[in-house]
């Protein structure tokens, strides 16, 4: 009894996020669904996927050596490094994006330095483009990628690497051919926990991106708050939800077989 009653409540609450396209009351119509055929939407979804994919690849590429290095530290330093990776993840997200907005600002030291080195043109901006969105996204999701990779790397038998080297593999080759397959499960988790939330990214493109970097999330917010068109926002959310749930179900299928 003690278990059952809260369970029903939890079911009720946990079900809420699973109902993205709930009805809105005033009759039924397919207008919102039809609005999805808007010619700008394929590009929007394409851009969302592309930005998310870039961020995910960058996060994984950076996190792999980090997880490797962390797993090889002594237990005390390992715990410290882990804490250092986690703390920024608990600090306020809006604040961190705001910090980046200031760093990348046109009159900031970074922009001036790059201009001085002639790495960026005189009128080129660091904010408002895809690079800015990806850099800040990588910054935000890096801890998400490091944690599962580290958890997997910690269980990895490093003797295998020595064996690979004894057999003549160069360090990089041993890393690619032995270490990465060895922590495959961690890599899959890391890809999912970066890629899926990235698809729903809204704050980062809104704050450091420009009109050319809008993602589905921005469109949903715009439909919602600027146009006050809830059904259309809901239809977009529904499409996004399908996009998000697909990889999750694929993974479950893969696990079962």
């Amino acid at each position, binding site marked *: 009894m*003690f278990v059952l009653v809260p369970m029903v409540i939890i079911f009720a*609450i946990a079900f809420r996020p699973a*109902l993205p396209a709930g009805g809105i009351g005033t009759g039924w119509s397919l207008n919102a669904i039809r609005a999805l055929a808007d010619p700008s939407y394929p590009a929007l979804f394409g851009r969302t996927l592309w930005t998310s994919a870039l961020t995910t690849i960058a996060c994984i590429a950076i996190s792999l050596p980090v997880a490797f290095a962390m797993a090889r530290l002594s237990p005390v330093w390992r715990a410290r*490094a882990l804490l250092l990776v986690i703390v920024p993840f608990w600090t306020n997200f809006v604040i961190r994006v705001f910090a980046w907005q200031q760093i990348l600002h046109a009159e900031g030291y970074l922009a*001036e330095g790059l201009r001085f080195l002639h790495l960026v043109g005189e009128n080129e901006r660091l904010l408002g483009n895809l690079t800015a969105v990806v850099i800040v996204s990588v910054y935000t999701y890096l801890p998400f990628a490091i944690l599962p990779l580290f958890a997997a790397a910690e269980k990895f038998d490093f003797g295998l690497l020595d064996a690979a080297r004894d057999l003549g593999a160069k*360090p990089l080759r041993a890393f690619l051919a032995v270490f990465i397959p060895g922590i495959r499960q961690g890599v899959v988790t890391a890809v999912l926990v970066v890629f*899926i*939330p990235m698809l729903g990214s809204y704050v980062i493109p809104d704050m450091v991106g420009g009109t050319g970097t809008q993602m589905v999330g921005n469109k949903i917010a715009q439909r*919602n708050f600027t146009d006050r068109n809830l059904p259309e926002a809901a239809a977009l959310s529904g499409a996004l939800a399908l996009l998000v749930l697909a990889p*999750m179900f694929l993974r479950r299928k893969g696990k079962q077989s």
Partner: protein
Amino acid sequence: MKPSRVPFVTLVIVLVFLYLPIAFLVMNSCNTSRFASKWGGFSLRWYERLFERQDIIAALGNSLKIATAASIISMVLGTAAAFALERHRSRLQDAHRLLITVPLVLPDILMGMSLLLLFVSLGVSLNLITITVAHVTFCLSYVALVVQARLQDFDFNTVEAARDLGATKLQAFVKVTLPLLAPGILAGGLLAFTLSIDDYVITYFVKGPGSDTLPTLVYSMIKKSKDLPVINALSSLMLAATFIVVAVSQRLTRPTPIRD
């Protein structure tokens, strides 16, 4: 053979990369100059300005109220959920587990949107209570996970022993189970508190007019480019608060030494 230095160097660079923006922010909060890019000397004037802002104080109050309520409710429900997950295994539980873990990865914007639609279709007016309900929805999952991790090494024989010695179910729960699980539950609650205080996206979707929390207020200030140095000062204080909470929860989650 000498191990490669590359991974270690990457680790150090990544840590610097993670903390640089935070350091930059704190540094700027003490900058006299209005412009983030120019260093004008040390001052605490933005902190003074911060405490003159009534709207910020009010938003902070809202944030604290919501976070407190949300963390208490999700502590209760999350613990119950963890018990259900740990003690009863069936096909239903698989579905239950999925429902608990989905909010962990579901993009915030979808949670926000679905909750907004739910409230709108129920005809509930948006206010602090809707924000609290929304926060409970996502905090719950985290609390359940933390408590469940604790339950995995929990010795249910202690409860059996209490029952054998004549304790009622309630007595056994209050006197044996709860005290043993308290550190895990509290850690989950703290986690819920920080998540609730930090949340922007979901809050933005379900907040009604006039009920700003700290993150939504900060966001709208940033969007309007209003009083940016004040935001730096505010951010620094929020960062300090987060670090304290993390330090406390670290102590709580540290595994308790085994006693004889």
